[in-house]
């Protein structure tokens, strides 16, 4: 085809010995055309990022292209010399990354970092470069571009940083833009804006885009063409609508089935139970202290009142900085509040001293976001789970027996008990985390983004497990998440938080069908692939 910009043929990327497989990418074929967005989709470890980096010759040490070719403007990039690659990078092919904070040099101003691209590839003088930088920043709709150019990365928000990265990548109007999960680290409303921006710029410049993502919602919003990668093998590729609506390969089908739908599942109506855990006008401030002059005050919780009833799942939904995690931590007394009250099972525990908290702690347990960081790497799984009951006075043998029993309950083999956390996958570790939380036979579980770090297929399994255990053990669940789709799946009621306050609290079905607050509506509108998910939902519910 004449307008093919990039032609990847039989690409195989070898991994160093000792890796879980011989090659990260195996015999991949993909053609990118001008003016089209190609989404490369896969779960973690599928090799999608390495495939993208191979295009620019940015593979990590000891990982290299073993076979195949990457043709770009009549040149095979796998055989290009470093000097030839340097000419192409930044000028003909731009790249943006997942985490704009770390992808920018913290010590250089935004303007200087964009200017660098111009000084490498163009003969422009200093004045012309400066002007061009400001124009570029204006193109990505940054307010006050001249001020942004003088700013350092830490002075901007995540969305602004990613806009600056896009300005840098598109500075010289490249033929190809590689975007490696560029919106994964951003809030959902910011993500929607950035996707929009990439889409607009790409259309107006006729740029070909290789867009790496794990999120089919994003695919539905932005892709022209979709390629699905499973453990390094390209299992399916084609136009977006064909792949989304009529997937051929079983893996694609499974992935799509696991995407949380924007729909409220049918649930048996519940009797409102008694209140198990309640926050009454909880207020928490953080003051930045200054020696002279006034310090800045951040209100993390602005008089929040919310009650979790027995047997229900209450969702706390919000973007980063909304105070949802702070509220969850305040309600578990992991964090003290300035004013207001926390009531657990009829007992006011707001100011109970730590040493008297122990009997209360047994009733309420937490599940954390990061299954890697929240387990002590030097502790065997059985010790991780049994530690709580032993602290609360259960004999060791009994506690260990309970630990093994719980492993069965969360769907792990009892032999897992004698292994260490690093031997498990992310999903398995989250199961261990759940078992650990259950070991004290709590009445309330507080889950802080328990599935955010997991792949979508694993996410579905863990959510199902949580719902099942909650029903079987008659628990109350406080579920913190940034993802409305996940909240709709599992929650009975949802509280939408913003800037330390609850802006809307209603039954899940009500909030879905008739959101009242403008912010709730904005959140629903920003869910990646909202239109596609709605269409899917309409299909599924005849």
């Amino acid at each position, binding site marked *: 085809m004449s307008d093919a910009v990039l032609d990847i043929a039989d690409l195989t990327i070898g991994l160093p010995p000792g890796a879980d497989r011989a090659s990260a990418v195996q015999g991949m074929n993909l053609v990118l055309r001008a003016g089209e967005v190609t989404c490369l989709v896969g779960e973690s470890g599928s090799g999608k990022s390495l495939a993208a980096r191979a295009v620019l010759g940015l593979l990590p040490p000891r990982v290299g292209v073993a076979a195949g070719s990457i043709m770009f403007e009549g040149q095979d990039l796998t055989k290009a010399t470093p000097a030839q690659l340097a000419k192409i990078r930044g000028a003909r092919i731009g790249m943006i990354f997942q985490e704009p904070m770390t*992808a920018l040099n913290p010590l250089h101003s935004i303007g200087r970092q964009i200017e*660098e691209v111009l000084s490498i590839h163009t003969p422009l003088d200093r004045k012309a470069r400066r002007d061009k930088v400001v124009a570029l920043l204006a193109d990505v709709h940054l307010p006050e571009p001249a001020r942004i150019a003088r700013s350092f990365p830490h002075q901007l928000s995540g969305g602004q940083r990613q806009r600056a990265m896009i300005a840098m990548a598109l500075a010289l109007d490249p033929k190809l833009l590689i975007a490696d999960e560029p919106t994964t680290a951003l809030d959902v409303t910011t993500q929607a804006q950035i996707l929009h921006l990439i889409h607009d710029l790409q259309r107006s410049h006729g740029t070909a885009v290789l867009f790496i993502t794990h999120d089919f919602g994003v695919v539905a919003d932005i892709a022209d063409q979709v390629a699905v990668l499973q453990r390094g093998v390209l299992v399916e590729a084609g136009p977006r609508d064909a792949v989304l609506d009529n997937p051929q390969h079983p893996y694609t089908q499974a992935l799509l089935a696991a995407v949380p739908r924007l729909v409220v599942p049918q649930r048996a109506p519940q009797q409102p139970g008694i209140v198990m855990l309640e926050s009454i006008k909880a207020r928490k401030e953080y003051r930045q202290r200054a020696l002279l002059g006034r310090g800045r005050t951040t209100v993390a919780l602005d008089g929040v009142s919310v009650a979790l009833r027995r047997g229900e799942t209450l969702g706390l939904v919000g973007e980063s900085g909304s105070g949802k995690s702070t509220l969850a931590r305040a309600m578990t007394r992991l964090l003290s509040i300035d004013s207001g009250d926390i009531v657990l099972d009829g007992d006011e525990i707001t100011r109970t001293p730590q040493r008297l908290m122990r009997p209360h702690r047994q009733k309420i347990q937490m599940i954390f976001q990061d299954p890697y960081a929240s387990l002590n790497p030097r502790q065997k799984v059985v010790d991780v789970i049994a530690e709580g009951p032993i602290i609360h006075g259960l004999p060791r043998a009994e506690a260990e027996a309970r630990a093994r029993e719980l492993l069965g309950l969360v769907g792990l083999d009892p032999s897992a008990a004698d292994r260490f956390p690093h031997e498990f996958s992310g999903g398995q570790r989250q199961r261990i985390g759940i078992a650990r939380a259950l070991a004290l036979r709590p009445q309330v579980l507080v889950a802080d983004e328990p599935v955010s770090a997991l792949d979508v297929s694993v996410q579905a399994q863990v959510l199902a497990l949580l719902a099942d255990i909650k029903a079987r053990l008659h628990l109350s669940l406080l579920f913190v998440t940034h993802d409305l789709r996940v909240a709709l799946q599992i929650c009975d009621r949802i509280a939408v938080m913003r800037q330390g306050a609850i802006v809307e609290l209603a039954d899940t079905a009500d909030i879905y069908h008739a959101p009242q607050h403008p912010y709730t509506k904005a959140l629903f509108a920003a869910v990646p692939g909202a239109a596609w998910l709605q269409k899917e939902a309409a299909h599924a519910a005849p």
Partner: protein
Amino acid sequence: MRRWRYFGYRLVFALPVVFGILVLNFFLIQLAPGDAASVLAGESGAASPEYTALLREKFGLDRPLLEQFLAYIANALQFNLGYSFRNDSPVFELILARLGPTLLLMLTAFGAALGLGTALGVLAAVARNSWRDALISVITLVCYATPVFWLGLMLIVVFSVNLNWLPTSGFENIAEGYEGWERWVDIGRHLVMPGTALGLFYLALYTRVMRASMLEQTGMDYVVTARAKGQTEGRIVFGHMLRNAFLPVLTMAGVQAGNLIGGSVVVETVFGWPGLGTLAFNALQSRDLNLLLGIFFMSACLVVLINLAVELLTITLDPRIQA
């Protein structure tokens, strides 16, 4: 502008530290058994109690502790650190005369160790796992493990006694009566060996830290970004990574400024360098308490000043630090 405001804060914070040192100083004198009067009386051979009492009155030692304390602070604030009877001269003048050589020695050793250490660290990191890296590792290990006094003596044996390239000791060759440039060259020749002896350990330390810090930066995302811009490897190392990697080295160097003063006592003694170190050593030998405490105070102030300088450098290099 912001930088200077932050620096101002730090300066304000340094004042209580200096005051704390003064207080500590005063009570150290009080802790020592006996007082200046009894020491002097004892040294005069046969002193009657009346004479001792007279001395006490003369020195104000019979007044209440608080009054003495306030007088001491007031004096110290006017840089009056007392009188050294051994040297028959005010302590402050003695210290001032020795401050120059010590500062010269310390700053030379510190600057050279920091500069060369950084350069070697970068070189080792860039040529990771090559023969250059291995060679630098071996050299740093040897420097690391060599005691300063032994190194000093060996330098004298090799370069002064056997090769006769450099003078064995002292600050300058007064007998030659050099003027202007010639004098500075002469001082420089005297400085080489003590500076080397003092700085080599820190050179090794900074090299190792800089190498590790550079390797850490190698894996950073912004390095990949720079590469994706088409930047050359050399520019990536010097334009992007160097400053990021240097920050932890600088922080550590600032903390260690105090150790450098301690090290200079040994080095100055070995090389007969007329600085605070030899002065302190002599004061210790002759139990000249006033002088010793004066030196203690001045070195503490010196450490505070060096820390302030390092801090200023850090906030100049790192825009993330703000008041």
